[in-house]
């Protein structure tokens, strides 16, 4: 075995360790930390044309890529520019034909390939997929985790088989309020000590006609990076439920065991400032998305010509529907109603726009907030929670009239 790993001697004395460090430091400084996962893209400034066609890198391994928010100037987010997220990285789906199972408390366990799945009735609907950690970087004090900004969200037309139809085909042995459905996907951990990304949803939610085992996204076969060939679609709920690379559904009386269901993705029931000690009874699973809006244009830092500017964006909620979007200019400016554009439809978002006659040259802050039918309005800052979930503070954009 040739040792080119540069591994530090384990049993040396502190003197020889120090000598080894001096010898290695030069090579390290030259190579930096970048290995095969080092910077392959361009550092520094990106010109506007290129910027529009690229995603923001939050992590390369696993791939966590964020959508630039100006892409939200249209109803459907293109597959290529849809945000990418997983816990452990895409599996090598090409190694074998995909198999999918329905097991557990069912009369007739199912095991099928994609061909058989395609013989079942397919439905489609647009739905907003948002990473539950979207906006984490806005929380203060800083919270560990992927530092998403505004763009870990998107809206796509999802097509697939209703999970309810699969469960009916398998024949449930328990009633809707008696259990849960475990969601096994191929987002596989790097170590046997790392908990697998295993989640469950209540059986009642699994039987909702909107919950789909999706095979298509925006009219195309579900792309690999978005969970292809199969993923779960759970409209109104955060992305932690939209399990990718779906392998098996297991009906059970209990929630899924393990870290990602029992410990992760919990929100406090009551206000929990930094440092608060929380008991399990104080926490609930993060499911339904709160109301939120984003300004797609102008973009942050935009330089605008004086005159009439169209401010546009998107708004959505997991709780009912968006009833109002308002825009304000400046920190203390009055809130004015924006026009909601497309038809209201549960699970998906609404485009909105409003017109702004710019005052003279200078810097301006644009603000947008949405209200939903459950009575929720976006706050200035979302109440702090220790995992940094579900940020829905009022969106702000700085621009300059030149």
């Amino acid at each position: 075995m040739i040792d080119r790993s540069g591994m530090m001697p384990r049993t040396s004395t502190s003197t020889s360790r120090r000598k080894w460090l001096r010898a290695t430091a030069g090579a390290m400084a030259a190579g930096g930390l970048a290995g095969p996962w080092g910077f392959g893209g361009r550092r520094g400034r990106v010109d506007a044309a290129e910027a529009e066609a690229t995603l923001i890198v939050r992590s390369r391994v696993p791939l966590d890529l964020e959508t630039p928010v100006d892409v939200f100037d249209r109803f459907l987010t293109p597959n290529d520019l849809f945000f990418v997220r997983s816990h452990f990285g895409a599996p090598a789906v090409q190694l074998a034909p995909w198999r999918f199972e329905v097991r557990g408390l069912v009369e007739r366990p199912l095991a099928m390939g994609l061909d058989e799945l395609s013989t079942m009735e397919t439905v489609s609907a647009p739905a907003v997929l948002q990473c539950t950690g979207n906006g984490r970087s806005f929380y203060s004090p800083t919270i560990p985790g992927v530092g998403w900004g505004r763009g870990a969200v998107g809206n796509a037309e999802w097509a697939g088989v209703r999970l309810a139809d699969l469960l009916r085909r398998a024949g449930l042995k328990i009633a809707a309020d008696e259990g849960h459905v475990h969601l096994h996907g191929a987002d596989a951990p790097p170590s046997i000590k790392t908990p697998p990304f295993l989640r469950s949803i209540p059986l009642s939610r699994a039987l909702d006609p909107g919950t789909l085992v999706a095979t298509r996204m925006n009219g195309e076969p579900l792309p690999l990076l978005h969970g292809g060939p199969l993923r779960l679609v759970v409209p109104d709920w955060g992305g932690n439920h939209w399990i990718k690379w779906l392998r098996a559904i297991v009906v059970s009386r209990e929630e899924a065991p393990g870290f990602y269901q029992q410990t992760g993705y919990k929100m406090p029931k009551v206000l929990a400032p930094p440092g608060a000690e929380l008991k399990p009874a104080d926490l609930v699973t993060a499911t339904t998305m709160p109301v939120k809006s984003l300004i797609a244009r102008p973009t942050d830092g935009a330089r605008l010509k004086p005159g009439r500017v169209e401010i546009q964006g998107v708004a959505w909620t997991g709780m009912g529907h968006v009833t109002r979007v308002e825009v304000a200019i400046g920190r203390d400016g009055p809130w004015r109603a924006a026009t909601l554009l497309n038809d209201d439809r549960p699970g998906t978002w609404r485009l909105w726009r409003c017109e702004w006659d710019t005052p003279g040259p200078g810097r301006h802050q644009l603000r947008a907030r949405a209200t939903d039918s459950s009575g929720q309005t976006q706050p200035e800052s979302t109440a702090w929670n220790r995992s940094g979930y579900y940020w829905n503070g009022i969106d702000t954009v700085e621009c300059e009239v030149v």
Partner: protein
Amino acid sequence: MGRFSRFLPIVPTSLVALVAAFVGTTGVPAPGDRALDPDRDDRLAMGRLAFRDNCLMCHSEEMTTRSRLTEKQWATEIDKMIGWGAPVPADLKGPLLEFLVSAYSDPGSSPVAAPERISPRAALDLVSPDGPLPRVGDVAQGASLYKAHCATCHGPEARGGDLGTALVEKTVLLRPSEYSGIVRKGLRRMPGFEAALNPERESDILAWLRTRRFEIGMP
């Protein structure tokens, strides 16, 4: 050692911290004058290498280098990661924490740069085949070669072991060029095997690995 000078945060030192630096503690030594703490640069260097060798096994650097956390938060993260399989040796935990705190705590003294961008094509390329399989390997041969050379670190079922990551259904198995580069030359704590394996044996092991599947419900 000028190259590490930017790692020294500018904080006022208390008398207690000065004493601790003299006496030596098992906790993170207080930052201070290099004259009082001549080993600090070496500890930071060891910590940096510990990060490279034990953290970058499983994830790329951005998750760490783009964070700005307190010492307590970094200590919690280190313990969580060790619990999840990061093979940080016990005597490097201290230097690792010291390195992370010195480099990735204070956004004032080390602001986070603008993030990288990537095209959709380049993103997909990272997990796609990087060339044809040079030959069809012998699965049975691969099984025994894996057991002899790889299982110690990567586990008997290639689902990960003490020093090696899980390989089952990982995209590196679709990338014969990347795979053989790693097998021959090594990567961080993994040594290179070009003396022990030839291209034929490498492809036998790859063929066996490509047959592995993880079972539903297994961790």
